[in-house]
């Protein structure tokens, strides 16, 4: 597995606040990697540094083995970046925005005609080429952003919370586009505050307070999770959660719809959990051990 972007000991401070605290991570080439974490975890800072638009204080960062500090401007053509805030011109039409970025990246001639046509089809924006970008829906704006970020056929695509505030249908469509791109060999790095997006990606990094708290390939990570997770279906999940939170046997107790997830150390057996439940006079017959969800992992790691 080759590495597209290799981050080593990266530090970035904003005045007193440390945004990135000696972060190291390898983003594998030709895969979709998700950066997941709450607001303020440092996802945007990391993506901006990787896009070359933010200086960093110390550490090293390489793209395909070449250091960022050496002639980075020339490498910008290899990167497609989509900022968190809509970065296109709302007073320009869809077509004008695409043309503008095609010009900036020096895409011309036949190559340009074909690529614009393909991107418009792929993003399903072709009926809207004359519409002002400001009048597009949230999901369409994001697809236009993606089309503009792809106009120069970049090797690495950096997307900062592209599905934030987008309806579920558009979100699924957006991910389908990412899978298509990935199959064609593009490396994708996407950030998100949602755990389920880490599950969609082939590879993920959990960030909290400028640090990496877990990373790996999703399925492995969950099976090798250092804690055991049990689910307890109940009609009064909230009350049960409150009740169990008072116990000190568990690492954490979280609400999951109509059930409560109990996270314990691996040494703490299912029988022990049942004993605790019985002592609390709770129904324990339906207790079940499960493969941890990302949310379990995330909450356990960031609170533990």
């Amino acid at each position: 597995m080759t590495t597209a972007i290799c981050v080593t000991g990266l530090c970035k401070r904003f005045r007193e606040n440390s945004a990135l605290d000696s972060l190291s991570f390898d983003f594998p080439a030709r895969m979709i990697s998700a950066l997941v974490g709450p607001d303020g975890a440092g996802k945007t800072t990391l993506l901006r540094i990787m896009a070359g638009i933010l200086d960093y204080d110390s550490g090293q960062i390489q793209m395909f083995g070449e250091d960022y500090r050496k002639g980075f401007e020339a490498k910008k053509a290899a990167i497609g970046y989509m900022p968190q805030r809509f970065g296109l011109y709302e007073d320009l039409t869809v077509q004008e925005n695409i043309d503008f970025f095609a010009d900036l990246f020096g895409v011309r001639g036949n190559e340009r005609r074909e690529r614009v046509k393909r991107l418009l089809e792929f993003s399903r924006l072709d009926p809207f080429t004359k519409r002002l970008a400001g009048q597009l829906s949230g999901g369409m704006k994001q697809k236009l952003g993606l089309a503009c970020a792809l106009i120069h056929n970049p090797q690495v695509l950096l997307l900062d919370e592209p599905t934030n505030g987008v309806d579920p249908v558009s979100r699924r469509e957006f991910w389908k586009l990412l899978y298509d791109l990935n199959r064609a060999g593009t490396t994708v790095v996407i950030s998100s505050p949602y755990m389920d997006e880490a599950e969609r990606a082939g590879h993920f990094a959990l960030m909290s307070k400028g640090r990496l708290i877990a990373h790996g390939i999703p399925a492995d990570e969950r099976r090798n999770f250092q804690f055991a997770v049990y689910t307890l279906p109940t009609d009064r999940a909230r009350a049960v959660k409150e009740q169990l939170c008072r116990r000190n046997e568990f690492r954490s107790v979280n609400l999951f719809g109509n059930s409560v997830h109990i996270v314990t150390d691996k040494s703490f057996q299912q029988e022990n959990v049942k004993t605790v439940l019985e002592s609390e006079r709770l129904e324990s017959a339906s207790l079940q051990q499960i493969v941890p969800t990302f949310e379990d992992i995330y909450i356990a790691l960031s609170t533990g």
Partner: protein
Amino acid sequence: MSFYRIWAIARKEFIQILRDVRSLIMAFLFPIVLIFLFSYAITLDIKQIPTAIIDYSNTDYSRELIRRFTNSQYFVEKNRPTSEKELQSLIDYGKVKVGIVISPDFADGLNRGGASIQTITDGSDANTSQSTLAYTSLIVSEYNLSRLQNSLGARMATTPIQANVRFWYNPDLNSQNFLVPGLISLIMTILGSLLASLTIAREWERGTMELLISTPLKPVELALGKLLPYYLIGMVDLLLAAYIGIVVFGVPFTGNLWTLALFSTFFLMAALSIGYLISVTLKSQQAAFQISLLTSFLPGFLLSGFLFPISSMPFVIQAVSLIVPGRYFISALRGLFLKGSTLQQLLPEALALLLFGSVFALLAIIKFRKKIQ
């Protein structure tokens, strides 16, 4: 440097200006309004001053003097109050600017050789008062002369010195001839500094800069692409203003049109670079607008010699005016419009403007960093 990228930025900027009503008004309507406003409403020649006259003397002599006042184009008799109290109220209410009081013993005094009249002016309007003073002395001395000539005969009563003042380049002392060239400079300052000061700040504010700096675009390309549309608009405004000035207001143009275009280019380079530098530094449209108003528009208005002669300013202010590009442009414009000056005669102005343009352009390009701070 890629002309492709410069063109991409310029075209995008052009589309944005054309779709933004505020920019359009600033670029095209505002200059026209300014020209008509200044040329019609503001006249530096003071004429037709509203005047009240009290004639306590009420003799042929006093009536003759009053005729001389009212027949001049300077004073218009608005009122004939009966007392000084009434006169004061007229001045207080702003009905008249000047009061002339002729005392009851005017005719007697005239025969004894010691008559006087009282002229009261509203000193809160210093300009009018100044002119009143000058016009009153002129009318009174003409009256004196004619009385001398009547009593002594025209041969005996001559004034020993005749001052022959001739006004070159603007023989009628028409203030529009003086204002219109200065207005062109003012319009270009507004366009150059104010509009250009918003362009980069707008990109930061709307969040479009983040994407822009992630592309291979170079700072020089961004600057040239951004400023090219404003340069072209500036040249259109120049033609518009010059056309209105020459055709509607009859301002003469005696110089060379190409020299005018060259100077306008130099000045726009300076004005646009200053605006761009402000924009690059401040990143907020409101702050940029205020700072450029303060550093470009106000000095361009007050310290450029547009209305107020630089030579009568205190030494320190004169020194400050040396760094106001408008000063050189206005001097060149007046030369080109009224005096038929050649490029050779205007070389110092040309060099000064070029210097401003290069220094500020260089500063702006150095100052711009393709990074988020």
